[in-house]
């Protein structure tokens, strides 16, 4: 279903291996998807799947988790889904710290509709709506999740498939809102428009620029501009939405009874 050299399949493979290693059962697992090339992942899944609307996957997932906290709920979105048209749901899911795992394929553009600029298109880069360079700045999705309150934040690329799987596993095990951002090649659009037409070229770009977070943090601000951090960026244990909700419910019930 995806173009050759696309990174989405690598993410999907990593996610499914993580499911297997954690012994997730199809019946207990719901994969919620948005709309886009990433959103079409559910075509390959035997778990429960809910293919939703563009940008709203997290809102649907919130409903699932709030009603049935026992389910493993994983949300697959593109950068358009998660932080462009659906940015509001993204920050609120993180703020609420609801126990979901969001995996975001960031290919820096709207892949499905033909490579237009999204909220993560880097300033100056070329897309089918910014033929002379994007005048806008891009979101740092991980930073956004961190300040909004996510318990777990990580970034990887398909170049680092094993590490990606390990991070997804950690994210799945984490209670509260966890995000794994996957920088991903879209050779058909973003790559083609930005002198990385060959699938390999975008992977090379990730390989050269992606630095393990410990190394990245040691760089000067100037040096950091040419790199991005990969690995686990945030790991904390604030109580998640369902825990806090349950606390209040117990307290309210006790007071009323008393």
């Amino acid at each position, binding site marked *: 279903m995806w173009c050759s050299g696309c990174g989405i399949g690598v993410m999907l493979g990593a996610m499914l291996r993580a499911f297997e290693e954690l012994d997730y059962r199809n019946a207990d697992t719901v994969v919620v998807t948005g*709309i886009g090339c990433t959103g079409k992942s559910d075509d390959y899944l035997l778990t429960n799947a809910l*293919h939703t*609307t*563009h*940008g709203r996957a997290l809102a649907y997932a919130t409903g699932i988790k709030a009603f049935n906290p026992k389910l493993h709920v994983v949300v697959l979105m593109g950068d358009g889904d998660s932080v*462009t*048209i659906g*940015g509001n749901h993204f920050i609120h899911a993180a703020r609420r710290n609801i126990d979901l795992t969001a995996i975001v394929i960031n290919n820096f553009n*709207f892949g*499905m*509709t*033909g490579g*237009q*600029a999204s*909220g993560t298109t880097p300033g100056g880069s070329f897309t*089918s*709506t*910014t*033929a*002379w360079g*994007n005048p*806008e700045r891009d979101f740092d999705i991980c930073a956004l999740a961190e300040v909004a309150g996510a318990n777990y934040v990580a970034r990887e690329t398909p170049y680092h498939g094993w590490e990606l799987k390990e991070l997804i596993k950690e994210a799945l095990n984490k209670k509260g809102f966890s995000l794994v951002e996957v920088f991903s090649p879209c050779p058909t659009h973003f790559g083609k428009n930005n002198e990385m037409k060959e699938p390999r070229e975008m992977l090379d770009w990730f390989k050269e620029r992606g630095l393990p977070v410990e190394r990245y943090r040691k760089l000067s601000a100037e040096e950091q501009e040419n790199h991005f951090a990969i690995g686990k960026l945030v790991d904390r244990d604030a109580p998640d939405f369902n825990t806090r909700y349950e606390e209040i419910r117990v307290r309210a019930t006790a007071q009323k009874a008393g």
Partner: protein
Amino acid sequence: MGKRVGMEVAIAAAEAAALCKFDVASVYPITPQSHVAEHLADIVNDGRVDASFITVESEHSALSSAMGASATGARVVTATSSQGLLYMGEVMPITSSMRLPIVMLIANRAISGPINIWNDHSDIMPMRDTGWISFFAENGQEVVDMTIQAFRVGEDRRVMLPVNVNMDGFQLPHMVEPIFFPDQEEVDRFLPEYVPYATLHPDRPVSMGTLGMPEIYAEAQKAKDVAVVNSIKVVKEVWKEWEKLFGRKYEPIQSYRTRDADVALVTMGSMGETAEIAVDALRKQGVKAGLLKIKLWRPFPFAELKKAVKGIRVLAVTDRACSFGGPGGPVCSEIRSALYEESVRPAIVNYLIGLGGRDVQAEDFMEMVRRAAKGKLSEPYEFYGVRG
């Protein structure tokens, strides 16, 4: 005097907006509108029109920012389809209430679910009552002409309303068609500079969009209705002028071989051309078939419809959207109620066709006419050729 070129209709629609020298384009991409978005961006980025293109984060923001720009006096174009149009739904009634003459190009596409990217009219039908003027184009030429006409009609001081131009998704925007483009000077003469009624300007502050208490809300609704109803005069006037200038005739309802017709099909949008082929074929077989093509959906052309159906025994009305649990498709229910008061009126049958891109061929229209000739179907409306 203009030129004829072969062009993809999505590109042509954006080119038509460029001839209107829009100031702001604010668009979020969606299949099958995306080439309109991209080409509007290219036109601006290449400096061909002195305008801004805003790569907004959603359709909701597309129309909201379009309204902001329009409120400052800019000529604004936007474009969308399907889910994107539904997402604009919150904003659309406010655009017309604020009397901001934005033009929206819609590549009509089915709405979810199930998700479907192909053409029908289920996106625009729920927007029927938002107070926008709605044109329906039949081919690429009409898309171009109607885009230019839309600015002229909407911005007319007697109208001051937003206008949407509907083109059947894929069937029109993705086709390469031969299209006559008027010259820039001709468009400049036809479309004077936009003079807004009121703008957000520091020298003369106004408030827009304030609360309407029960004492005034109803009057505001009535005022909007009067404006939409009255706009038909201007639409017809502008279409007459267009015909004089460019030789292409536009009417709210276009009749095809109906003078002595016994049974007439009714279509809206690109299927009119296929229906014409069916009518010609039936005529060859001696069946007195005809066709009415609706070009103006809002305001609905009541008087023109009544005139157009004179002498017709049966109308076979086709709809490209459902009204679940309702009286039939939205076009049919409109036509039925429009003719209710008439002492002599045709029998009406209703077919729901072409949903989610289902192909409808000339032979299908012929079959619809043959069956409609009985004056009645076994059901109040029929999902033509649909299983189950």
